[in-house]
């Protein structure tokens, strides 16, 4: 296996800007570009809570594809794998402000948190009030359960974004939106796996060891190292192992209802995803856990990484209703009620 060090790009240093132009033009019914930010083509009504997130690029459709009705109001894309700076985040807060307060969501990574905290101070200095920041984490490989707030953000945040987007669209208060964010976060766990790695498009540097083609479980979304399983491992074995770790970490009892996400980390085939999903579903059923909703596809990618993540979110009727609420972004659509 070799790492693809060249992508179909022009000057790689221009890739993020050119991607945004192309993506916004292709989805002009849903989003538009405004000062380097992705914003909704049709803004929310006045008085509603605005939801904004900044993140590194290279994870598409996260988060540019998650701006739209029932989802985010504003996304501030940063350079590849790097959070945007505080100035960009303050611009995002301002753009998301519809007079009902702004929820700044942060996927827990050192740079994202630092820049968000700098931005909150800057927004405060500028007299922007009613901004609440919530830090989100779900990746069980990144820290033990006893240090859950040290965990990093992973693919499971899919559920958090979906649910907060839905409740903000309804016109809920800032406090209620933040409550849902924390509730969904605390019920969500994710774990990832990959074989091989990808190269950074600008520097051409492979992330990690390009010659190691064994399967690793517990990688981060920037290719951070995980635990090696070896090369000769069957999909069912990986699915079973990952679901077992997720269920045990979440202390899910038999009878629990979950949302199950299988995130394509980049270049997996539908064949592989379907086989992996089948194994995960069988393992959950063996444990008496009911899969209430499923989503399989690219949500948060790492360029063309040959990897994936499973995430589970323990549902109740409130979260299920929010999950089912209609949403329309360039990279994610929920047509309506089940």
């Amino acid at each position: 296996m070799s790492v693809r060090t060249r992508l179909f790009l022009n000057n790689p240093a221009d890739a993020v800007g050119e991607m945004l132009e192309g993506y916004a033009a292709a989805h002009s019914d849903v989003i538009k570009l405004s000062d380097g930010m992705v914003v909704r083509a049709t803004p929310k009504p006045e008085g509603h809570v605005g939801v904004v997130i900044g993140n590194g690029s290279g994870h598409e459709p996260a988060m540019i594809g998650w701006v739209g009705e029932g989802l985010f109001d504003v996304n501030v894309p940063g350079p590849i794998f790097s959070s945007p700076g505080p100035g960009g985040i303050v611009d995002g807060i301002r753009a998301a402000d519809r007079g009902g307060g702004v929820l700044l969501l942060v996927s827990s990574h050192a740079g994202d948190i630092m820049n968000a905290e700098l931005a909150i101070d800057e927004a405060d200095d500028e007299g922007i009030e009613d901004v609440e920041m919530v830090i989100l984490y779900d990746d069980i490989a990144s820290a033990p359960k006893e240090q859950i707030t040290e965990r990093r953000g992973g693919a499971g945040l899919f559920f958090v974004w979906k649910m907060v987007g839905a409740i903000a669209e309804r016109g809920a208060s800032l406090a209620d939106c933040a409550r849902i964010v924390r509730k969904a976060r605390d019920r969500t766990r994710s774990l990832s796996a990959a074989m091989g790695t990808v190269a950074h498009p600008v520097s051409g540097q492979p992330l990690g060891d390009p010659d190691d083609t064994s399967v690793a479980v517990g990688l981060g979304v920037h290719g951070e190292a995980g635990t090696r399983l070896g090369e000769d491992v069957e999909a069912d074995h990986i699915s079973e192992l990952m679901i077992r770790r997720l269920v045990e970490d979440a202390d899910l009892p038999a009878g629990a209802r979950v949302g199950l996400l299988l995130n394509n980390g980049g270049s997996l085939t539908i064949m592989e995803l379907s086989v992996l999903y089948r194994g995960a579903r069988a393992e959950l059923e063996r444990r008496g856990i009911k899969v209430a909703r499923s989503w399989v596809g690219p949500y948060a990618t790492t360029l063309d990484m040959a990897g994936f993540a499973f995430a589970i979110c323990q549902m109740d009727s409130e979260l299920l209703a929010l999950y089912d609420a209609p949403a329309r972004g360039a990279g994610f659509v929920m047509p309506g009620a089940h």
Partner: protein
Amino acid sequence: MLDGDLSRRLVDAARRRVSDHQDELSRLDAVAGDGDHGVNMATALSEAMERIEASDDPTPAEVFRTTGRAFHDAVGGAAGALFGSFFGAIGGQLNRSDNPATPADMVTGMEKGLTRVMRIGKVEPGQKTMVDALTPAVDAARTASGEGASLARILDAAARAARRGALSTTSLEPRAGRARYAAEQSIGSEDPGACTVALIFEAWAEAVESQG
């Protein structure tokens, strides 16, 4: 004394030095990070110089604050936030000083920068970060300044201490930021942020020395 022109030349010297070493920095970053540190630092310093050249006769404070903002705007991420805050803190201190500033003003700015980096990054020395080069550099600068040394001598002492500090990160296990998830791979390899700090101080020491 530190006037606007010397400040500009300090940033430009840092830009040249970091650009010359950007591949090496990115390789160090790829060990436990995402392999773009060198590119990012070079981009930020180039952006800073463009903005500085576009302004008319900037003060030392303006040069350093502009550099800080360029890191925040052009790079983002943890490194952009931390290096940006370091330069910004120096600029903030120089803004409260006379123009031209004294070597002691510069050292006070560097001390404030270190404090700010440690607060924002929530890092202490020994966690395999830029702080492991910055702390000894600032300590050495403070000592030299206390002995009444010239800016050239102060920056020379800081550069030597920063390089020793950067090299000392090789054997450390990362305990902060993204690299902590790749702790094993990282041992035996220098921290890229600490290496950048050493490069910047070395470039500064040379730039001041060459002006006599």
